[in-house]
């Protein structure tokens, strides 16, 4: 496996030691049909106050990576087979179950995609928010209720004092996602993993929720891992991006560079397939084919069967490209990254340098 190129720190001042350092993480699912290799050597780091966006299609391993970090993989069938997850310098994977449980929620929290299914339908939101304080802080019922109201105010749920007794189904989608965010924020964790936090929401509410998340992140200088397949959401809030394909990171870059000039053909394909107003009337680009089955990942570069640049080249079929530094603090796992960068005119100069 390739050594991980440490991503450049963001413009914001960050301490030298990353908050979270995932090293060579491997996760597999042992199913009846065989072993599905969901994550195959993922490396990334997140510093305090920094937002890392993890992009990828369904099945690219982005959510499984997050579940492995949280320690909520379903075992069996899911197993972490290799790697380290260093959180504030300590390896989460070697901690005892009880130690990890104490980290979850208090130090690392998670926001789920669909808040309606991620909130318990038979408990009021106040009970569920208060539970955070009862589990981790041993608060009394009354204290927990007061804290719940305070949290709901903080995420700007109107009339928190009255709504604290309502059930999740009585909230609108955006308000429910605010409740989820409040739960994740409750104990002021150092790191939040948001797994497609806005996918289930409509566009106007998406923006509100993302703004809220970004604002709270700044206020508490938390690290944020934003898992998404929506390139539009990423552009505004992320500091850096990691693009995943078939359980590997294929490209990492500071956020704006990747939009200007992707260094991996897969990223290029993703960017081209965004509908754009100035290309109205023309057929929308789509990456050909389907993502590979994780039971049978193709040899060589896993993307080569769909790649516009491989063009049947032997190297793409035989050798797995490592994620190596390219230019400007970026890394790409493509044998022909120069070509990819180069045929984009805007970036031609930099690529040649």
């Amino acid at each position, binding site marked *: 496996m390739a050594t991980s190129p440490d991503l450049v720190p963001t413009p914001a001042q960050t301490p030298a030691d990353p908050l979270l350092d995932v090293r060579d993480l491997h996760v597999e699912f042992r199913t009846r049909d065989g072993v599905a290799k969901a994550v195959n050597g993922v490396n990334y780091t997140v510093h305090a106050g920094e937002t890392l966006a993890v992009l990828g299609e369904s099945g690219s391993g982005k959510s499984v990576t997050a579940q492995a970090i*949280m320690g*909520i993989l379903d075992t069996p069938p899911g197993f972490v087979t290799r790697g380290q997850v260093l959180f504030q310098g300590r390896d989460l994977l070697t901690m005892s179950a009880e130690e990890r*449980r*104490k*980290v*979850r*929620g*208090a130090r690392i*929290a*998670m926001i*789920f995609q*669909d808040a309606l*299914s*991620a*909130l*318990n*339908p*038979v*408990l*009021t939101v106040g009970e569920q928010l208060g*539970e*955070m304080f009862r*589990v*981790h802080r041993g608060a009394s019922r009354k204290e927990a209720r007061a804290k719940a109201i*305070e949290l709901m*105010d*903080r995420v*700007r*749920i*109107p*009339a*928190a*004092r*009255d709504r604290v*007794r*309502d*059930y999740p*189904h*009585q*909230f*609108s989608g*955006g*308000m429910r996602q605010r409740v*989820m965010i409040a*739960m*994740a924020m409750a104990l002021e964790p150092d790191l939040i993993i948001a797994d497609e936090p806005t996918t289930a929401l409509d566009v*106007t*509410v998406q923006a*509100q929720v993302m*703004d*809220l998340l970004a604002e709270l992140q700044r206020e508490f200088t938390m690290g944020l891992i934003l898992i998404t397949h929506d390139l539009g959401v990423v552009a505004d809030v992320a500091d850096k991006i990691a693009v995943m394909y078939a359980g590997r990171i294929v490209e990492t870059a500071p956020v704006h560079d990747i939009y200007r000039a992707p260094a991996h053909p897969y990223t290029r394909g993703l960017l081209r397939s965004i509908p754009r107003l100035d290309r109205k009337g023309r057929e929308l680009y789509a990456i050909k084919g389907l993502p590979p089955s994780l039971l049978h990942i193709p040899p060589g570069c896993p993307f080569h069967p769909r790649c516009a640049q491989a063009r049947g080249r032997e190297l793409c079929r035989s050798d797995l490209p490592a994620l190596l530094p390219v230019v400007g603090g970026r890394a790409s796992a493509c044998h022909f990254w120069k070509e990819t960068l180069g045929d984009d005119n805007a970036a031609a100069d930099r690529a040649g340098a």
Partner: protein
Amino acid sequence: MPDAQDPLEPVDPHQAVAPAGGYGGGFDLAAADAQILEGPAGRAQDGGPLAKPRSLWSDAWHDLRRNPIFIVSALIILFLLFIVIWPQAITTQDPLKANLAMSQAGPSAGHPFGFDNQGRDVYTRVVYGARASVSVGLCATIGVVLAGSALGALAGYFGGWWDAVLSRISDIFFGIPVILGGLVFLSVVTNSTIWPVVGFMVLLGWPQVARIARGSVITARQNDYVLAARALGAGDSRLLLRHIAPNAVAPVIVVGTIALGTYIALEATLSYLGVGLRPPTVSWGIDISDASNQIRNAPHMLLWPAGALSLTVLAFIMLGDAVRDALDPKLR
């Protein structure tokens, strides 16, 4: 029924009035937008005319109150419970007092159901017989539901070898024919209290509830909110008791309520066969057994306890049906 019109009545103050509570972090545009988009209007839409929070249970209760089957069965059961607790309220006689001179005599003043073989008052025995039947039924159901749901929930939650072992054991118990098992196990018992019978029913009944509980826990544990609660630091016991159990308990309650009626019938069956309750305990099953060979001479001896038994079993099974309809509309 009281307050049948109440869904129309309550007016949620928040529908009309702007929220009184502050916004905590001060008033700002985003909050104002959110308020406009999703404030009182959203609430009125979500809550409908009944804007008070309604959980599964209050929803079920709302359905039940309107179900005539529930009302009839509940009234019968309430009356039964009343005579179980206080039989003296409707009979002043002693169910064990025998007057051989009156053996098999028909109805007479003060003895509306007549007398049995040994000259005991059939009416009084029917009234006192409810006590044995209902207490056996209730105790057996409570035992079965507790044992079955605990074992089933653990099997469903932890899975793996514990689940495999438990499932095989419950298969074995499923395979024992109830009557044969009763004849074998209970014929060696000499204790004349209800406990051997209750114990036997729990022993043979728990696998049924365990299977239901296991299935519904497996369904409930796959929900995102269980994963979310785990991601936010809840341990196994909290997940199981607070997040999974309340969402998995409805089918168990349904099965338990319906089973109650069948346990009452089973008690009568076992007592009829002479391996259930023993005299001097007063039981409908025993009385039916005593009366069965006198059916031509004195049919009243059989009809009254058998009628009481049928009515009781019917009431509990109807209650179970109504509860099932209310808790699990999909089964209807």
